Structure formats: C-alpha cells, structure tokens
C-alpha cells in the first residue's frame, strides 16, 4: 500500500498574468520514483520549482493552491526551510566552481551557517559520495576543485550535495539531458537505487528514461495534468488519448 508523502492541491502557477499550471492535483508516494513527463513548455519544470519554492524567485511569479509535505503546508513555512527539506538537481551540472569537492558536498551546511564538527563533516561527505556512486572515483582528490570532473561525475557530485542535506524529497530536473549515454545510464541506475532511501520526483521529456526508471508517471500537457498512474500500465494501456499520442510521438 502506497504512502502519500507530498500532496499538491488545486495548484495554479503564474508568471505575471500568464497561467502556466492549471488546477493541478497530484499525490507523490514515498520511496517511489515519480516521473513528471511531457513535452517542452508543459509546465513540468515550473511544477517542481513550485515544490521547492524556487518558482517565486522569478519576477512576477506566484501561485494559488497548496502543497503539503507530510501534511505540512510548504507555503506557510520559511522558504529556506522548505529548500533544506527538498533537494534539487539541475539539468546542467552546477558544482560551485570556487569550492573543493569536499566543500561542495557539504555546501548546504556551509551556506546555511550550520556548524558541524570535523568528524560529522567527514562522515556526511563520505556517506553522500558513496550513495551517489562517486566515492571511489574522488576519494583521493577530495580537496581539489570540482571542475576537473567529467559531466557525469559533476552531476553525481551535485546529487551528493543534495543528498547530504538528507532531504525528504529529491527533485531531478532533466538530470541527464546534458550527459552522454554512458553517464546517463549510470545515473539512471543510481536513481533506481536511491529510491530506497529518498522519494524521487524526476522531470523529463525522455519517454524511454521515464519507462526505465519510474514507478509512477504523471503526464502533463500545456499546464494540465492529463493522466497519472503506474508507469507499466500507462505505457501499455494509457487512459487518455493525449497520453497515447505523446507516447507514440504524434504530439510533443
């Protein structure tokens, strides 16, 4: 039986007067990978940016509706606290260029002014890098700057950085679009492995990737949630014609 960890209720999102998300109602299940799938411009990136309250940083951006994490309304608490509970990995790998790999992993703590002892820091760095599958490759060069790493390694560093904060939910915004096929498949396996410890919401327009890694899929089109269900069911017998058209490549 699935446990609901995040509930999105009647969410409408605006940039100025333009409505980009229309009345979205969605439940995210704990310890599962849920993919937000849809063509470019369907609002999927906006959706996850509403979840971690990054959306409101854009000029003229606002929302109506509620997002509840384990029953708590995320728009009634400090945005900074929301973002500490919900981690995000972006499309283009973006490790901080002036920090070492070590510091990059615990950057969340440094930037929030949370003080940790050396042992605590070492432990978090090692655990996070092991979880993101990067430990063996960088354990000898923890104090070098992160920019010499390959694209795939940089992205895993960003994943480690997000995991270090021990988030309840991990948001991945097209995490492999900028990577080569080998790096992509490494990260896809990582995503499947990680769901044991963290709930994952993945945004992608890549149908193949959605099929390979996700348990549930939510299909969005022009700002509306068209269909939500188990990936295996949606990909074999979609309930909506729009979903079918997207999956076979007729639209999007």
């Amino acid at each position, binding site marked *: 039986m699935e446990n609901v960890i995040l509930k999105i209720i009647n969410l409408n999102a605006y940039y100025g007067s333009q409505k980009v998300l229309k009345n979205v109602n969605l439940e995210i299940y704990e310890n599962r990978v849920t993919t937000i799938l849809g063509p470019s411009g369907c609002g999927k990136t906006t959706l996850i940016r509403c979840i971690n309250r990054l959306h409101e940083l854009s000029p003229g951006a606002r929302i109506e509706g509620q997002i509840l994490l384990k029953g708590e309304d995320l728009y009634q608490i400090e945005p900074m606290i929301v973002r500490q509970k919900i981690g995000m990995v972006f499309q283009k790998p973006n490790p901080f260029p002036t920090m070492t790999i070590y510091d990059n992993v615990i950057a969340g703590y440094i930037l929030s002014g949370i003080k940790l002892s050396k042992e605590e820091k070492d432990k978090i760095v090692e655990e996070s890098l092991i979880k993101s599958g990067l430990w063996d490759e960088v354990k000898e060069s923890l104090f070098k700057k992160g920019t010499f790493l390959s694209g795939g390694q940089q992205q895993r560093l960003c994943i480690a950085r997000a995991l270090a904060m021990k988030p309840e939910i991990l948001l991945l915004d097209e995490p492999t679009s900028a990577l080569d096929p080998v790096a992509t498949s490494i990260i896809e*396996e990582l995503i499947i492995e990680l769901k044991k410890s963290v709930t994952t919401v993945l945004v992608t327009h890549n149908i193949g990737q959605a099929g*390979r890694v996700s348990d549930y899929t939510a299909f969005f089109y022009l700002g509306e949630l068209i269909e939500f269900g188990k*990936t*295996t069911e949606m*990909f074999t017998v979609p309930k909506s014609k729009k979903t079918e058209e997207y999956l076979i490549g007729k639209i999007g």
Partner: protein
Amino acid sequence: MSEILERKIVSLKEMVSNLVSIVSDQIEKSFIALRDRNKELCKEIVEKDDYIDSYSMDLERECLETIATQNPKAEHLRIISAILFANIDLERMADHCVDIAEITLTIADEPLLKPLIDLPRMKDICIKMLVDSLKAFLSRNLELARKSIDEDDKIDDLNDQIFRELLTYMLEDPRNIKRANALLQISQHYERIGDHATNLCERAIYAYEGAMIKTNPHKPRY
C-alpha cells in the same frame, strides 16, 4: 539499465516454465482420465483451464509491459517475443486437453473399445516434446530443439496408424462408430498438441539464432 531487463527476463522465463509444467500435467491427466474413464478427473481438467487462461493473460501482460518500459533489443527482444508466441501455443495445447476431457466424458460410461497402445505413445511423445522444447529454450540447446521437431513425425505416423485401425473397427460393426469416432478425435487433438509443441521448438531456435525455420506441420497423407 540492462540489469532490470535481465531480471525481468528471468522472471518471464520462470512464468513460462510454470505454464509448461501445468500444461504437461493436463496432457498426462487427459490420458489417464480416458484410460480409467474417470469422469471426476475430466471435470478437474476442465476447471483447471480457467486458471491456465488467466495465467496466460498475466504472462502476456508482463511481456508487453517489459517491452514498453525497458526497450529490449536484439536477443532480449527475440527472447521476449519467443515467450509471447509460446504463450499462445501453450494456451491452445491446454484447450486441446479440455477438448479431450470433454470427449472422454461422452464415452466414459461405456467400456473401452480396444486396449490403448498407440494413444499413450502419442501422449508420451507430446509431453517429451513439450519438456524438451522448454529445456532447449532455457539452456540454449538448439540441437535438442531440432531433434524434438523431428519427433513430431512419429506423432503424425501414429495418428495415421490409429486412423487405419479405427476405420477397421467402424467398418466391422456400426455400434463401434461412436467410440471409434471419439478415439479418432482424441488422436487428432494429440496430433495438434504435437504441432504446437513443434512451434515451441521453432521459437526457441529463433530466439537464439534469429532465424525462423518453418517446418511443414502435416505430412501428406495420401
């Protein structure tokens, strides 16, 4: 990525093995019910078929879901395709067993027309072909698959033999016609089961070699 796919394929192979085991059981039971004129056993065979149908649908659904989400290519794709088609043949084989049981029910109250000699031989070859085809598929033993295909000729020959023999009985005495006809039909059902088993062997070869060999299912009779 292919780890999940490999695990799914292992699970699909397990499912098809289960199905083979249930179907070969049905074939065996269908003969015993005939030999012992056991009406209870006939009813069991008919009821079991519902379970087989539902299991077969599950197997088909699992195959399709795997194709839709995991993008199998080359050999992976051929293996899943082989399982999908084998599923159909196995389900038809089970249907033939049901037909045999229902025919048996019509003559169960009368004594056997003649001692059954050729029919059990046919049934044994059917079961052997079925089991060998699975073995060949699971262990990539293409030699075994090819040898198994040849066994089908024996089934066809036995069917012809039974036909000639029963013809004699029918010409001898019109009261034999009902029972002889029933046995004739049963013999033909076993012959069809043998044909389906041949398909299974061909699919096994296709999965690994990528080439479909189509053998002529019926030797010319006349």
